[in-house]
């Protein structure tokens, strides 16, 4: 998956209909001759923490963004429904229920990644 943006990137997670705890942890990396360099700290968006959208200043170029979704059952249950977006474009969605066992902390994860191309401001 490739997403092209111009100017600053804004990452957002909409999980307002989820009774479970939902978190999206994004790690932004840029390719180098020897591998990948990580840009900044991981972005943590959730329905219990940081407010969406979260703007991130990125220099023009190519980035591979690794996203780790985590859903944790709590006392209100394990229902979840989320959308992960960059600059208003939904990239990943999911819904369901992680409460599948007697364990009160049923947890499920999903790991995804996508390419993010950042164009300089003013370039269409």
């Amino acid at each position: 998956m490739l997403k092209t943006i111009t100017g600053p990137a804004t990452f957002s997670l909409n999980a307002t209909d989820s009774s479970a705890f939902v978190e999206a942890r994004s790690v932004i990396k840029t390719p180098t001759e020897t591998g990948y360099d990580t840009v900044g700290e991981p972005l943590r968006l959730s329905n219990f923490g940081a407010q969406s959208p979260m703007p991130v200043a990125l220099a023009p170029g190519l980035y591979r963004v690794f996203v780790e979704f985590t859903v944790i059952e709590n006392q209100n249950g394990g229902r979840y429904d989320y959308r992960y977006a960059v600059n208003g474009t939904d990239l990943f969605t999911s819904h369901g229920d992680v409460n599948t066992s007697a364990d009160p902390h049923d947890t499920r994860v999903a790991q995804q990644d996508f390419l993010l191309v950042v164009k300089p401001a003013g370039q269409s």
Partner: protein
Amino acid sequence: MSRLSRVLCLAAALLCAPSLRAAEQAPDWVQIFEEASHVTDWKDLLADTASGSVSAASLLGISGESVTPVENLRDVVLGLQGLGSGGDRGTLALSVTPGRTGIAPVPYASYRRSALARLWAATTFAYAQGDADIEEKSFARRALSVETSLVLHEGDDELVIIGDTLKNPRGTECDVDQLDDVQAARKVYEQAREAQQHEADLAMAKAIAQGHYPPGTEPQPVTVVMQENALSQAKQAHYKACFDQALKRVRWNRSRLALMYGTGWIKPASGGGRQEGLGQTLVVSLNYGFESLPSLRERLGLMLTYRQTWAEPVLSSLAAGTPDRKSSALLIGQLAGGNSRIRALAQFSNARSRDITASQRAFKEAAGLDLRVREGLWLNLRVGRQRAVGGDSNETGSLLSLSYSPSALLK
């Protein structure tokens, strides 16, 4: 000697106390409880704040252990299977908290910002039925109840505390990202993808650096499947400790309002006698945690419970066929201190009726001790003065019982 043994010895000592006055003159309550629980700092002493429940099961005297929490239709079927072949004979107790099941789940975002959402999340509906023998006659009883509660200061709510701990996990058990097994499981995916994509990514990065951008078509959203794998298992294993640690920050004496309503019916188990109502009961309970007094906010809890009953049958007249009925108002005050496993309390009430209903058997004055056997299950000891069943005198009573606090109200 185990903690349980020590407390049982203490309970036995209290039972042998000749009177409440003698118990009040016991040498040093603080010293006794410290010895019983190995707690040396009174600040650490906590107590369960479960208010006088009027759940359907408790109306019928059915043990809380027998209550089947309903999360889906299967739970109802399992509960019904516990009945005898007579259909309405036998014990059945069901409770459902819709806001905490798939029936009408409360989104966490709403829970976090709305007191009404938290109130709904704590609302429990219950049904119970069971048999009882009164004056050598057998009766079948049914009861319904609804109850809810609200922690008055949002920051004292247990789910809010857990969410806030997950938000700022540094230095807590919730900081699972820093754990070796989580990091190792995470890298499996990332390293595989990096090895797979590096050559193409590097080539595209070089092209972009020279001003050659790929076509900017809008991607279609991908539906993600949440998985149970090594990473989820590593995280889940740590979240139990995370939640448990966060819950230790829940103040035992947090201020809370609870509302409960119950009603029931009774009829002879055989012979086709008339069905009688068990009256209606409304309970309003307010716990005050002394938030404004720093020296007391971790130590004491004041609980006021107002219990209003309408048309409650007088116990001694139930077997006569046409029971006498009485409405009553009962105000109970409790001052409690304790810890997460043991609590001491003094209780006072305005019980004074001449015709004794179930409600009016509450202690007029009492001292007590509660021991948490395990989460939600308490061993309760009370010694105090209550009205005699005959209604024309007081008597010294003692009570040793097991009680169950529904998790929807208390964690």
